[in-house]
C-alpha cells in the first residue's frame, strides 16, 4: 500500500514540476517574438546638443605707449545718474591703478574743473542727458588732448519689486547729446546672435575688424549690447555674422560694438568688463585696450582749437552695416575737434 502511495506522490510532484515549468517558460515563449528595439535618439546626441562654452581665462595686461605718462588721473562720471556698480568697473579700475593712475568720480559741480589735470573721462550709461555747458567742457577737454570713453547700452527693461507690486521701467542710455557732438550714436535695440554667442543669444560674440590696435583680441563677448556708429570713425570690434537687432526685422549684419573716432572711444556694452565676465574669450584684452586708450591721453590746457575743424585723416564712412574696414586711420588717435 505504501508503495502505491509513493507512486502517486511521485506523479503528483512531477505534475507540479511540469505545471511550474510551463508557467515559468510560457511567458518567455509567448513574448519571444515581441522583443522591443531600444528607442534611438540621435537628436539628443550630447555632442550636438551641448554648446561649447567659451573659455573664461586670462588677465588684464596693459601695455601702454612708452611715451604715455607714468601717472595721471581718470575721471569717471557719476553726475548723470550713471548706472554702473563697482563690479562693473573694477577690472578696469584695477588695470588703471596698476599703471599708477588715480581714479576719481565726478559727482557734481563744474565739469571743467573736475577734468582739469585729468587724462581721460569715462562716461558709463548715463540716465540723464548732458547739458550744453557740460558738453562744451568735455569738448574743451578732448580738444586739448584729453580722452573720452563713452559706454552706452541699448534700451533696457528693468523689473523692480516694491510694496506696491512689481513695476517695469524702461532704461535708456542718455548719451545722445554728448555722443552726437562727436558724430557718434548708440542704438536703442539690443543685438542678438543665435549662432555665435556665449551661452545665450543676447551674449553676442564680437570680433576685431583689424583696424585700430586691438592686439590679442580674437574674440570678445558682449552682453546685451547696442550697435554704435561714428561718422568717419574706426570700427574696432564688430558682432559676428548673422547678428540681429531686437525687433521683428529680418536684417542681419555685423554691427559695430566698439568704435573710435580720434581720441574718443564709444562702446555699446558695459558688462563685458564686469568682474565675472572680463575673462570670457579675450575680453581681458579689450579691457586692457580701454585702459591703455585712457592712459595714453594727454590733456594740455588750452590753446584753443577751432571746434568745427576736422582732423581730416579719417577715410570712409561707417553706417553700421556689414561692410568692413572703414578707415586707414593709424593706431595713434588724433585729438578730436
Amino acid at each position: 500500500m505504501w508503495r502505491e502511495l509513493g507512486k502517486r506522490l511521485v506523479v503528483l510532484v512531477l505534475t507540479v514540476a511540469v505545471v511550474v515549468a510551463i508557467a515559468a517558460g510560457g511567458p518567455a515563449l509567448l513574448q519571444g517574438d515581441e522583443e522591443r528595439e531600444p528607442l534611438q535618439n540621435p537628436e539628443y546626441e550630447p555632442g550636438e546638443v551641448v554648446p561649447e562654452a567659451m573659455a573664461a581665462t586670462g588677465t588684464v595686461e596693459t601695455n601702454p605707449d612708452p611715451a604715455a605718462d607714468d601717472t595721471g588721473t581718470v575721471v569717471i562720471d557719476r553726475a548723470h545718474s550713471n548706472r554702473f556698480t563697482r563690479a562693473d568697473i573694477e577690472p578696469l579700475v584695477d588695470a588703471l591703478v596698476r599703471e599708477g593712475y588715480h581714479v576719481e568720480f565726478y559727482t557734481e559741480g563744474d565739469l571743467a574743473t573736475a577734468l582739469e589735470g585729468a587724462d581721460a573721462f569715462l562716461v558709463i550709461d548715463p540716465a540723464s542727458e548732458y547739458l550744453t555747458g557740460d558738453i562744451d567742457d568735455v569738448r574743451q577737454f578732448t580738444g586739448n588732448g584729453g580722452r573720452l570713453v563713452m559706454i552706452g547700452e541699448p534700451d533696457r527693461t528693468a523689473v523692480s519689486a516694491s510694496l506696491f507690486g512689481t513695476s517695469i521701467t524702461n532704461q535708456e542710455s542718455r548719451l545722445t547729446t554728448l555722443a552726437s557732438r562727436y558724430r557718434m550714436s548708440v542704438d536703442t535695440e539690443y543685438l542678438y546672435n543665435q549662432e555665435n554667442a556665449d551661452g545665450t543669444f543676447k551674449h553676442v560674440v564680437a570680433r576685431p575688424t583689424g583696424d585700430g590696435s586691438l592686439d590679442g583680441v580674437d574674440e570678445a563677448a558682449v552682453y546685451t549690447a547696442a550697435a554704435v556708429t561714428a561718422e568717419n570713425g574706426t570700427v574696432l570690434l564688430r558682432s559676428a555674422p548673422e547678428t540681429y537687432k531686437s525687433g521683428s526685422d529680418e536684417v542681419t549684419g555685423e554691427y559695430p560694438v566698439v568704435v573710435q573716432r580720434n581720441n574718443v572711444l564709444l562702446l555699446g556694452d558695459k558688462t563685458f568688463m564686469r568682474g565675472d565676465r572680463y575673462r570670457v574669450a579675450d575680453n581681458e584684452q579689450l579691457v586692457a585696450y580701454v585702459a591703455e586708450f585712457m592712459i595714453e591721453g594727454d590733456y594740455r590746457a588750452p590753446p584753443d582749437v577751432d571746434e568745427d575743424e576736422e582732423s581730416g585723416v579719417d577715410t570712409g564712412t561707417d553706417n553700421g552695416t556689414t561692410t568692413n574696414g572703414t578707415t586707414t586711420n593709424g593706431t595713434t588717435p588724433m585729438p578730436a575737434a
Partner: protein
Amino acid sequence: MASRIRALLTRIARSYVLFVVIGVVVGLALAPVAWNATSSEGTVAVVPVSGAIDGGTSAGVSSMLQQARADSDVKAVVLLVNSGGGGAAASEEMYLQTKRTAQEMPVITSVDASAASGAYYTIAPSDHIYAKPASTVGSVGVLATTPQTLEPTTIISTTGPNKLTGGDEREFNYILESLGRAFVGAVFEQRGDRLELSRSELEQARIYSGTQAVQNGLVDSIGGRQAAVEHAADEAGLDSYNVRVMRPDGTVRFLSRSNYIASTAPEKKMVSAEYLYGENPSGPVFLMVPAAYLEPSTNESTDSPPVAETGVRVEATVAPGGTHVA
C-alpha cells in the same frame, strides 16, 4: 377551463415559434458583442493631451500611450491636443512616448486651440498634424527664472560655492541653451523634411496660427478631430474601426453614444468635453466672439488675468525656480 389552459401551454411548449422568439431575443442581446467582434478590424485610440503639462499629465499620457501599444486591437493613435506647454522634463517624456508609439503604429494629431511649446514637442513625432485656422502652434523654446546670485553665509553653509544656486547666470544660460537645442534638434529630427523654417527661425520661438503653420511646415494640414480619426484609420488600413478615448487609469470613455452602447468595455463612461480639451491653456487665447460678450466683471477672483478689449487674454504664469517649456 384549466384543461384548456394546459392544452394551450402544451401547444406553445411544443411549438418552434417560442424557441425562435427566445433565440432572437438572446441573439439580439449578444449582437453588439458579435457585431464588434466581426465588423471592426481594429480600434483607433484617442489620447487627449490637455492643460498645462506637468508630471501628472506626462504620467497620464504615457500610461495611455502604453495601453494603446499593449492593446493588440489598437491599430492607430490620435493625439487630441489643447495645451500651451509646461514643464520641460515632462514634455520630453511625452515626446519620447509619442516617438515610441509612432514607431509602432500611425500617430495622427489634431490640434484644438493650442499646441505650443512643450505641447508641440509632444506631437512633433506624429505622422500627420492637423490644426484649425485659429489654433496656435510653435513657441519652440525654453524659459526659466534665472537663479539669484547667492553666497553661502554663516547662516547657510554649503560644501561647494555653487551648491546654493547651481552655477552663475552665465553657466545657467548654457544649461538653458542645451535644453533649447535638444528641443529644436528633436523638432528638426521629426519634421526637418517638412519644415520651411530654418533652424534659427524656429529658435526664435514665435507662435503661429494654424494656417501660418501649414505654410511653414509646423503643421501638415487644416482639419479637426474627425479628419484626424479618419486619417489614422486610413493609415492603419482599417475600413471599419472603433474609436476609443483612452483614460490614464485604464477605463474607457467614448466619443459618441453609438460607440458607447456597442462597447463591452468595463467601467465605460461617455467622455466630457473638458476631459478632451481641458481648460484654457496658458498663453494668448484668441476668441471668436463679439467684444460685447466679454465682461471683465465675470472675473471672479482678483488674481484672474484681465480680459483685454481685443479679446486676447494673456496669462503668463511661471513657477519660480523651475524650467518650463511654456
